[in-house]
Every structure is written in structure tokens, then in C-alpha cells.
């Protein structure tokens, strides 16, 4: 067997074990060292990706690597490393230091990384579970915050529903195809369609598409803000890279397009409408994530390589923008008495010109204003939809994007054009947060101007 296909995951696991063992002996004052160590682990995994020979299969064909999912893993590792760097100061200022928190995000990343390579429903279920359980923990570990416990519990319950749907779907998959391996199955069989429906529902719940979105706003609001940044970036990237692989096995079913069109239309319009009535910016961005899930699901409506390449480009850059915006919010939250109410953002530009400008940059990126990379993703997705003659979906996509501009612009207007009423003590940006913000904004701008740097790497 070819062991080098597993090198990135092995590096990650070794790193987790190392931090885990050090954590047993280290006291609380070494929290910073531990966290920075574990933030470096994904960097090593990233480097080890170059050692992997691809395309290859291993472990009785359960695990496969290809150029695309290696790229997905690279994006995932960068995101994990950045979100770990951004966590340190927030937890210290909030007085909620759990040294265990330094490796739990790595466990989630391990799960997501296995998910991207899985070619068998058993491995898919287990890797998804590994990632989810670590994420429930990340959401609920916040000292003396009732909201975070509630959010964690809600996420756990909803996640359990997804798990049961997924396992029932796998059972029907086995009943209809006689195997748990993902493969092409071309017979007309209602049992197979049922399994597809269940598996797709479970994955849609993880991707927070309407009508499976109920956990999203609460979990995002209750979770510690850097964790929200992680939740809104890393799992999305892994899921959509996995979706693109799943597409090759399922796309020929005539129900596939219908199901995805319903899911994405509901997500886009429902979330964009509900986002307007939100008073908390954190919740508003949670609804923006749901709307984006709608846009992304359009990218896997049918098989067309331009469409899927645009989707993967879009979702990778969206993850960086999303992580960046939540990190800015976590910097602001370190101020005494700062809630994420819209009014607290009034006149932010006067107090923190750099932070406000960066936040505006990310919000403009979400709208899809040209120099930002998300515009290229949106344009690619639109072109792909037009090419595959899914014109109604393409126009719905444009309409929803225009609709969404309003609530992003309102936050920008509040930050730049209005006077602040409440005074807060100034917030300091820590080194880790600065690094994350700089890299995220740099990537969003750089790949907007030179999109081919990433686009050429996505070979389907």
C-alpha cells in the first residue's frame, strides 16, 4: 500500500498528539506557547502535501487523493492555522483559557481533511462526525457564557439529526447498490433516490442550507467569535470540495438538479430577506453564510467544469473573507461592554480606521464588488450557469446578490457615515489577529486582481 497518501493527515495527527501530551504537563501560563505550536501544525501538514503522489487510492480504496482535494486540503490547513493564530488573545482577554482548546480545532480539521478524501460512506460519516463533535465542543467551551452552552446544545441536537439522516441514507444506499463505496449507479431505482435525498439533506444541514439552517444563527451567535470564524470557513471549504466529488456519482439523477435548485433558491431568498431584520451584526453574518450556502449549491447543480471550478474558487476565497470579518468582530468584542448590536458599530471608523476599513473590504467582497476576489467567483458561477443553460437559476443568483447588498451596505454606512453614541475603551489588535487579518485581506485582494494564480490550480 502507498502510505504517502496519508502523510498530511499523519502529520496533523502527530501534531495533535504532541500538543495533547504537552498540554497534560503544561500549566495555564503556557497557553500561548501551546496555541502557537498547534497553529504551526497545519503549516507542516501544508508542506507535507507536496510529498503526496497523486492521483492515488489506498486503504482498500477507501481513501483517495487527487489534485483537487489536495488543493482543498491546502486551503483548509491555511484557514485552520490562521484561525488558531487569531484565537489566542480573545480567550485570554475574555478570561476563558482552556488549554485543551489549542488542539480541538486541529481534530476538527483532521476530520474535514479525511472527509475530502473519503470514497466510502462509512468513512464519510465518521470523518463528518469527528469534525462535528469537535465543533460542538468549540462552540460550547466558553467560560460562564450561558449563550454558548445553549448554542452548543442546539448544534449538537441538529447535528445528531443530520447523523441519523446520513446513516439511514447510507443504509438505503447499501440496500440499493450492494456496496458502501461511492460509485456510479445508473439504474432507475426509487430506493437509490431515497438514499440520495437523505444523504443530501444531511450534508445540506452541515452546509446550513434552508430548510436545515435553524442551528446556524444561534450557533454562530453563541459561539466565541474566533470559533465562529472557524465554523464559517473551514467546514464550508471541505464540504464543497466533497460535494464536487459526490457530483460525479449523482449528477445523472433527474432529481438532483431539482433538489439542489429548491435548496439553493430557498437559502438565497429566505436568508437574504431575514438578514434585513437582524439587529446583531454577528447574526447578520450568520444569515449571510446561509445565503452563500445557497449560491454555492448552485455550483453543483449540474456537471460542468467551468461551474465547479468557479465554485471551488468562490468558496475558498469566501472562507478567507468570512474568517477575516469574524476576526475583526472578535477584536472589537474584546472591548468592555461591546455587544454586536448594529448601533455599537456606529462611528467605528473614527475610533478604528484600519479595522473599519478592513471590515468594509470584507463586506464589499461579500457583495461582490470588482477588485475583490469574490467578484471573480460570482462572475464565474454566473457564466457557468449561463453556459449550462440554467438561465432562471443564473438570474435568481444575480437578483439575490443584489438583494443582499442592502444589509451589508447598512453596516458600512453605520461605520463610516454616522457618529458613535457610545464610547468604548480602545481595542488592541494582537499579533496573531493582525497576521490573520493581513493574510485574509491580502488574499482577497490579490486573487481578485490575479485570479489565475488560484484558478489555474483547480484542475478538474
Amino acid at each position: 500500500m502507498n502510505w504517502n497518501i496519508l502523510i498530511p493527515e499523519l502529520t496533523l495527527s502527530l501534531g495533535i498528539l504532541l500538543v495533547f501530551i504537552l498540554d497534560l504537563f503544561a500549566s495555564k501560563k503556557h497557553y500561548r506557547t501551546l496555541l502557537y505550536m498547534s497553529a504551526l501544525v497545519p503549516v507542516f501538514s501544508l508542506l507535507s502535501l507536496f510529498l503526496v503522489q497523486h492521483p492515488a487510492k489506498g486503504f482498500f480504496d477507501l481513501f483517495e487523493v487527487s489534485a483537487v482535494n489536495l488543493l482543498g486540503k491546502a486551503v483548509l490547513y491555511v484557514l485552520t492555522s490562521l484561525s488558531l493564530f487569531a484565537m489566542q488573545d480573545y480567550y485570554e482577554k475574555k478570561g476563558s483559557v482552556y488549554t485543551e482548546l489549542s488542539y480541538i480545532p486541529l481534530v476538527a480539521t483532521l476530520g474535514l481533511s479525511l472527509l475530502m478524501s473519503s470514497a466510502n460512506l462509512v468513512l464519510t460519516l465518521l470523518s463528518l462526525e469527528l469534525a462535528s463533535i469537535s465543533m460542538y465542543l468549540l462552540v460550547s467551551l466558553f467560560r460562564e457564557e450561558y449563550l454558548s452552552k445553549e448554542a452548543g446544545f442546539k448544534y449538537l441536537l441538529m447535528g445528531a439529526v443530520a447523523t441519523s439522516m446520513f446513516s439511514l441514507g447510507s443504509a438505503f444506499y447499501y440496500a440499493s447498490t450492494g456496496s458502501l463505496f461511492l460509485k456510479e449507479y445508473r439504474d432507475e431505482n426509487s430506493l437509490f433516490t431515497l438514499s440520495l435525498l437523505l444523504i443530501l439533506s444531511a450534508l445540506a444541514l452541515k452546509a446550513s442550507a434552508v430548510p436545515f439552517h435553524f442551528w446556524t444563527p444561534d450557533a454562530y451567535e453563541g459561539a466565541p467569535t474566533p470559533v465562529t470564524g472557524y465554523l464559517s470557513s473551514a467546514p464550508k471549504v471541505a464540504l464543497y470540495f466533497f460535494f464536487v466529488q459526490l457530483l460525479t456519482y449523482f449528477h445523472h439523477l433527474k432529481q438532483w438538479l431539482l433538489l439542489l435548485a429548491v435548496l439553493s433558491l430557498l437559502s438565497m431568498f429566505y436568508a437574504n430577506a431575514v438578514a434585513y431584520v437582524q439587529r446583531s451584526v454577528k447574526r447578520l453574518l450568520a444569515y449571510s453564510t446561509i445565503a452563500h450556502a445557497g449560491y454555492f449549491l448552485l455550483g453543483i447543480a449540474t456537471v460542468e467544469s467551468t461551474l465547479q471550478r468557479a465554485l471551488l474558487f468562490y468558496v475558498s476565497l469566501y472562507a478567507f473573507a468570512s474568517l477575516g470579518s469574524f476576526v475583526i468582530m472578535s477584536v472589537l468584542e474584546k472591548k468592555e461592554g461591546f455587544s454586536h448590536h448594529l448601533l455599537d458599530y456606529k462611528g467605528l471608523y473614527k475610533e478604528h480606521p484600519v479595522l473599519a476599513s478592513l471590515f468594509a473590504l470584507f463586506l464589499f467582497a461579500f457583495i461582490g464588488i470588482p477588485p475583490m476576489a469574490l467578484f471573480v467567483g460570482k462572475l464565474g458561477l454566473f457564466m457557468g450557469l449561463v453556459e449550462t443553460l440554467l438561465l432562471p437559476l443564473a438570474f435568481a443568483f444575480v437578483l439575490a446578490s443584489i438583494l443582499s447588498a442592502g444589509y451589508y451596505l447598512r453596516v458600512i454606512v453605520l461605520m463610516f457615515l454616522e457618529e458613535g453614541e457610545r464610547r468604548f475603551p480602545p481595542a488592541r489588535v494582537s499579533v496573531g489577529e493582525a497576521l490573520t487579518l493581513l493574510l485574509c485581506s491580502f488574499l482577497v485582494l490579490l486573487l481578485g486582481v490575479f485570479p489565475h494564480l488560484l484558478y489555474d490550480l483547480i484542475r478538474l
Partner: protein
Amino acid sequence: MEWLIFGFLSTWAVLSVLGVLFLKNPIHALLSFVSLILAVAGMFLHLRAELLAGLQLIIYAVAIVVFYVLVITTIPWEKVKRFEGFYKREFLAGFPILLVSFALFAYAILKGSFAKVGLEVKDNVKEVSKSLFTTYLFPLEVASVILLTAMIGAILLGRKEE
């Protein structure tokens, strides 16, 4: 004859699930959960999966139920929110969806064709362990990581904050 046994076992299982959902006393709900496990173990036996039936009894009926009993005894019941009445509005909204999805599932299963899987298995233990330690060895390892993470999480969430 087979249908008779299956009918009996499945009615038993459905009734016990309803018991788990609707009984107010936690101990009664727990007992009804045990009865569900027995019914499912019966189904496994009826499908000639003795190993699964045995594991179901050992793992669920013994180990997990004991844990549930432990949890129930440690919960400070005087602080727990009491039953607040039946959620009528939610039930009325959800029930049609339940019916429709049940009909949809039943239709899809009855109309679907089942794959023929391999030959008659003689020795359950041998076959299960063979696939567990060859094809599914890697997922087995992943499962151990899941258990470890869940354990760490349970300790973290359950311990007293200093």
C-alpha cells in the same frame, strides 16, 4: 411465519419508541428504551445476525443503559425544568410533514429494487471481523479518535469550573 415475527417485533419497537418520547418519568422512559433495544436485538436475531444481536444486548442494554442510569441519578432534578405541556401548535404544523415523508419513504422502499448481496454467510463473527480488520480498518481507527475527542469534551464540559 416470518412476517408474523417481524410484525410483532416492529410493533413492539414502535411502541417502545413512543414510550421513550412521551413518558414523563425519566426512569420509565429509560425502561422503555431498554425494551426498544430488546426488540431491535430480536430483529437482528430474526435476520440471522446473531453477532449483532449479542453486541446490541451487551453494548446497549448493559453498558449504555447503565450510563444513562448513572446520569439520571446525578442530575439535580429539583433544578430541572418541568414538563410544560404538549406543544400543540408545533405538533399540528409538523404532523402533515411527518405523514408526507412517511408516505414518500414507504413508497420509495416498496417500489425500489434491492441489490443481491453475496452469498449466504455461515459464520457471522468471522465475516464481520474480516471486513472490520481489512476493508474497514481505517474507519475503525477514525472511530477511536472520535471516542477520544468525545471523552475529552465530556470531561471538559462536565468538570467544575475553578
